[in-house]
């Protein structure tokens, strides 16, 4: 049994799940996290360091890591990959200018050996904006259908209105749960 197996086993007892929220800066990661947690979202500053929230959802304890884009700590968060059960990739659906960057970063991330096995939820965020692309458009622009290595799903959402955030959490928790915990 490897070290990771032991760590995982220990977490299994508590039905604990670790989610990593990633995406380009300004996508709305922190806003989503705070929104889910019922906090004020009006004066959120760009993330210095990172935020971690622990939430109970469907009988699971979710540790959600929101890692800011701060360059000086980018190398740090790779250390958490191997303990990540799920990835939440947040997209600013109105940011047409950086869709290519967004696609590139996502596909690079998915090559990470240490993330293999993690479920991937793509949040097509900021749907409240009239200029937002739909989930289907984002799915196409990010070539999600090319992904063969991870369970994935895309969901249109708005951190501002709260629409579909919990639905997304339901999916990822369900997917992880059926993968890790029911296999015993």
């Amino acid at each position, binding site marked *: 049994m*490897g070290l990771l197996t032991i760590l995982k086993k220990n977490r299994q007892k508590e039905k604990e799940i670790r989610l990593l929220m990633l995406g380009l800066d300004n996508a709305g990661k922190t806003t989503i996290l705070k929104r889910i947690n019922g906090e004020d979202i009006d*004066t959120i*500053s760009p993330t210095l360091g990172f935020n971690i929230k622990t939430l109970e959802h469907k009988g699971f304890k979710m540790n959600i890591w929101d890692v800011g884009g701060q360059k000086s700590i980018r190398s*740090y968060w790779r250390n958490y990959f191997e303990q990540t059960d799920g990835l939440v990739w947040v997209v600013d659906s*109105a940011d047409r200018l950086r869709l290519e960057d967004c696609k590139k970063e996502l596909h690079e991330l998915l090559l990470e050996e240490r993330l293999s*096995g993690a479920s991937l939820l793509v949040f097509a965020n900021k749907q409240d904006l009239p200029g937002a692309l739909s989930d289907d458009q984002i799915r196409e622009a990010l070539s999600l259908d090319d992904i063969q*290595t991870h*369970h994935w799903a895309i*969901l249109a959402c708005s951190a501002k209105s709260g629409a579909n955030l919990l639905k997304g959490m339901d999916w990822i928790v369900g997917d992880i749960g059926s993968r890790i915990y029911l296999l015993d």
Partner: protein
Amino acid sequence: MADASREFRATFDVEKQSIEDALVGLDKVPKSNVQASIDNLVQRIHALEKTVTEKISILPPYDARMCMEVQIKLLSIKSMAETLSQLRTKLVPKAKFSFKSRKTPATGISSPPTTPAPKSTVSHKSSPTIDQTHFMKFEDRADDYLFIGSLSLPLGDDGTTAKDVALTNLQNCTVNLVHDIPLGAIHIRNLKQCTLVIPPVSGSILLHDCEGCTLIGACHQSRMHTSSNMDIYLHVTSEPIIEDCTDMRFAPYGQILPAEQLDRLFEAAQLNPSNNYFDKVKDFNWLKQQQSPNWRLMDASEIKPEIAQRILTRDRV
């Protein structure tokens, strides 16, 4: 809060030290007990990390210093775990060591939680269908006057939905984005010796690689990277950040338009006019309590309201 975080650090340090000592002592543990000792240590590392995970949320959100310390400590836990892992491969027979179980078979299953996108067999979408109607841009210009009102709106666009703006590779230009068109996010990259006036926008200002510019702007978030020698007149409703920047000077946005008109623009952009954090700059490269050497506030004598005036009157017919 300060007490809680201090107490947390103290507890943390003691436990970390004790784990480290136990690690060093592992080679003296009788072979038959090695497995149990390692398991025990792994549990303790896990417990410690868990405390960090729990505690970090009660720490002041922008207590950067603490955050960094926690991160460094997390890293040291990580390196401990790695040492442990290596030790384990050395000490314990390899037979039980298997990574296979970790890997989920690559299934590539897509299971959208909403109704799955209909896989149409009839129509065939050609390559990505991203329309270019929701952003406007100026790029690769020098010694020019650039007014957003001079850009034509895409066909069929009534100009009521917010547009993102890209300003890229401009040298010695004057940029005026104040017009009837509501703006979302402003993406600025590689501007040298330019002057920009940006109306209240409903998104963020994101800026990279600029030098010697004057920027006048109002937004929800301000994110500035790898830039230097900038005069920034800002209204921002959250703490602005700088990263890898030097010589950044900040001042309030100022009354660039008649009060009534400006109020309307603030309202349209959903910006609270009485909430300005222009002076609460956070420097990602400076985590000490003392003032960062990379930015400062402008003196009253340095503030020049006429810069905006000059640019704006030029386009008022």
